[in-house]
Structures are given as structure tokens and as C-alpha cells.
């Protein structure tokens, strides 16, 4: 089987199940434990944003599609919320002092830094965020 897919209610209480879906599948497909942690982090950050910001009338839904490509383990997060391209966001100011440090903006930044391939596309009424890691420790 090369692709598996599951749809979840997009609310904070289901995030642990979404993370479990991704990490159990990654483990079964032989992704290195360290990279599974990176994936889990990206899934938590991205789905938390979908649950919090994507839908004008929450909760909406989020579909997670997992593909076992030859070189990469890829997941796509698909929602029907407001258009939002996380790749277009500026990185937070990491040098800011404690006092001025903003509490937000980190989630998207971590997603971009932890994975090997991240890209966004808008497809019809859907946001598609594609996240991938290589199988090995790297």
C-alpha cells in the first residue's frame, strides 16, 4: 500500500489522534525515530493552526494523506479553511530580547526548519500543506 488517508474533526482534542496516525504509519514504514519526532512536531503545529484559525465556524475537518515515496515519507494536510500560505510568512525575530519576544509565529517557523521538504498549494477551496522527511537519520 502506497497511500493511506484519514479525515479528522479539526478540534484540539483530536490532535493526539492525528499525531498518532502519522507517527504509527511512519514507524511502520521504517522512518527513523528522530525524524518521526520532527514529523510529529510539524503535525502538531500545523493542525493546531488549522483547529485555531482555519475555519470561520469551527470545527471543520482536516484530511491527512500519507504517501510512501521512494526517497521521502510524505504527508499532506488538507483543510477547507480560509486560504493561508505558511510559506509566505516572515520568520520570527529569534534575536529579540525576552521582554519583546513575541509568543506567536514559532509554529510555522519550526515546521519549515525541521522537515526536508515543505510546500503549500491552494487547490480549489482547499489548503494543501505538504510535509516530507527522508527515511534515515540524515
Amino acid at each position, binding site marked *: 500500500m502506497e497511500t493511506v488517508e484519514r479525515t479528522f474533526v479539526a478540534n484540539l482534542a483530536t490532535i493526539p489522534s492525528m499525531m498518532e496516525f502519522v507517527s504509527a504509519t511512519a514507524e511502520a514504514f521504517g522512518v527513523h525515530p528522530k525524524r518521526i519526532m520532527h514529523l510529529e512536531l510539524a503535525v502538531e503545529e500545523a493542525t493546531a493552526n488549522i483547529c485555531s484559525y482555519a475555519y470561520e465556524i469551527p470545527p471543520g475537518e482536516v484530511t491527512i494523506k500519507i504517501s510512501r515515496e521512494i526517497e521521502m515519507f510524505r504527508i499532506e494536510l488538507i483543510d477547507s479553511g480560509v486560504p493561508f500560505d505558511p510559506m509566505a510568512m516572515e520568520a520570527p525575530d*529569534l534575536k529579540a530580547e525576552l521582554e519583546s519576544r513575541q*509568543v506567536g509565529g514559532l509554529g510555522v517557523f519550526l515546521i519549515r526548519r525541521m522537515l526536508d521538504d515543505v510546500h503549500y498549494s491552494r487547490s480549489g477551496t482547499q489548503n494543501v500543506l505538504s510535509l516530507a522527511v527522508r527515511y534515515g537519520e540524515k
Partner: protein
Amino acid sequence: MNVKTQAEKGYWVVKLEGRLDISNSSQFEQECMQWIEQGQRRFILDLGGLEYISSAGLRSILAATKKLKAQKGSLSLCALSGLVEEVVTVSGFDNILQVYPDLTQAMAEE
């Protein structure tokens, strides 16, 4: 997540085990605020047993640190490893918080 606390040499040592994520970070933040209200001022978070942290977790630590600074207190981290070390570094939190290799050094140098 398991949270164990201990008062030691004037420090409030908080040992975290497991995962600090969106499902428990606001509860953890509340606990920190309660400890501060109870008069604790010099926090050391021992993250030796922490396996996972997300931005929600960092946010709760940042909130506690700001509160402590406002009360002339302090918060430092120690014994980071694996993903936790990576997330703290990548997010630049090691620039705004004191980070020590282990609890002994955190208590010696803070």
C-alpha cells in the same frame, strides 16, 4: 507528562517527564503561575526526562519566565537532549533563557 517539584538550595526545581505539548501546556502554565503565587522565585526546569516539546510548550515556559522576571525571579533550563534541545536551539530560546548541561551546574552558576 509527569511533573515533580522539589525545593533545593533556594531553587524551585521542576522535573518534567514525557511530552509538553498543546494538550497539557496550558495546564503546566497554570501550575507555574500557582508556584509563583505561592512565593517561588528561582525556577530550574530539569528537562532530562522530557522527550518532546512543541511551540505550545515553549510558549508556556516563556510566559512563566516573563512573570518571574517581573517579580525579580529567574528561570533556567537544564539537561536538554534530543528533540527538546533541537527545538530550544532552533527557536532561539537558548538566547533568551539560561541553559545548563545538568542540574548541578544550573544550581552552581545561576
